[in-house]
């Protein structure tokens, strides 16, 4: 972090450090099918976060004994590049990354028809190129698109977004500074068609009322992101169609 600490995260007019309103998402840019060697891939920029996701499979599970007789195995690796943060991060998976890999896997598993492809493995790689808070949520958002791009049958896309409390006010989609200096952070992942929450974590302190408001705020964020996801998936085909039918 730079020497100067931000003491005011939210100014008098209710604007945040980056000029956003309290219930505003960071600007999001998503692309699908960015890697030719992967079966499916996607890339997201959410504020300063830059994340790449790649999906392989269903393919043979390695090591073979991990394969399950009744459904596909979903293997997920969330990894931060050494240059993704201010101070060099060791490329070896840290305790935090192992944990996030697990929660991301569990957030996506309910959305995939794993039972269609027994004895195989679906391998998902999430590479954080630049981190600025909310990477697990952006990771889930982009991973869901990479899975859809790989043609893996899904019940629904999964959209994720965080909300929290900074400077005593509830705010959507916290940045790194707001997360570190703020009071609480709640990442939420949602399958919007069935209104099913597949990830809900919290750190920090909130009272019951604030908790409810924050979760609802995060859910509205998820729904906005979900719309973007759908548009992105269709965009390539719709553009080509319009070009040909003009």
């Amino acid at each position, binding site marked *: 972090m730079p020497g100067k600490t931000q003491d005011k995260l939210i100014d008098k007019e209710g604007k945040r450090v980056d000029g956003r309103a309290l219930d505003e998402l960071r600007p999001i840019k998503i692309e699908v099918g960015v890697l030719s060697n992967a079966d499916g891939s996607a890339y997201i920029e959410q504020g300063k976060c830059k994340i790449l996701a790649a999906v392989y499979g269903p*393919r043979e599970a390695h090591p073979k004994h991990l394969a399950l007789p009744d459904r596909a195995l979903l293997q997920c690796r969330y990894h931060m590049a050494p240059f993704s943060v201010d101070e060099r991060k060791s490329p070896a998976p840290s305790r935090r990354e192992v944990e996030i890999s697990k929660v991301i896997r569990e957030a996506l598993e309910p959305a995939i028809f794993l039972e269609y492809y027994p*004895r195989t493995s679906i391998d998902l790689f999430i590479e954080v190129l630049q981190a600025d808070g909310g990477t697990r949520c952006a990771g889930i958002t982009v991973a869901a698109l990479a899975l859809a791009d790989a043609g893996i049958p899904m019940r*629904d896309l999964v959209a994720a977004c965080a909300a929290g409390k900074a400077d005593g006010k509830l705010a959507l989609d916290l940045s790194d500074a707001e997360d570190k200096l703020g009071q609480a952070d709640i990442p939420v992942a949602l399958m*919007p*068609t069935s209104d099913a929450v597949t990830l809900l974590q919290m750190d920090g302190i909130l009272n019951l009322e604030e908790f409810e408001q924050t979760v609802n705020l995060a859910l509205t964020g998820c729904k906005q992101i979900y719309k973007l996801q759908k548009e992105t998936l*269709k965009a390539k085909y719709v553009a080509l169609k319009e070009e040909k039918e003009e």
Partner: protein
Amino acid sequence: MPVFFEKREIVTPGDLLAEGDYIAGENTYKEGDKLYATRLGLVDFADKKVIVVALKAFYVPAVGDTVIGKVVEITIAGWLVDIKAAQPAMLRASDVFERSFRPQRNELPSVFDIGDLLIAKIIAYDRTRDPQLTVREPGLGKITRGQIVEITPTKIPRVIGKKGSMINMIKEQTGCHIVLGQNGVILISGKTTENEQLAMMAIRKIDEESHIGGLTDRINELMKDYKRK
């Protein structure tokens, strides 16, 4: 009983397609009364059945499919063939040798070696077993000449067209012999490389533009244009 999309509209996983007394076809699922899409694709309604033709999918073997694969491993009792499915397919030595076969005499590589491309047919596959192949039918066996194109397997029906209209047109225009592997691998062999290239170009275009109407006419146009040059 409402329907929420038009025919041939693009849908994404989780899109609510229809509600009520409908039957879930391929790439859809039903929960209670509601019918959703599971893949990115084009929705189609036929009577009470709702299907989604996937724009992106991978190959799942089915018994009776003709596939094109590459030999990746030679085992004691046969060959392992990569057919672009989740598991490699097995071609047993006893399928190829008519006489009794002795594994002691290392003669498998002289028939099919690693890297050889084969046209084969799937004779067995289920959830518990890896796919098994045969080459003992006319038209099957090692590929000796031609070029290979790979497309999304779900678009093979599009390459064939209604009652073979598309594939017959391509064959006619280019004079190439074309073998379609259900796994999305296509073999093209013609008299000249130019003819093969033209057929490849047409097939790649079908892969890219399968979701846009009037495809047969556009492909026909494309090939005529190319020939004039």
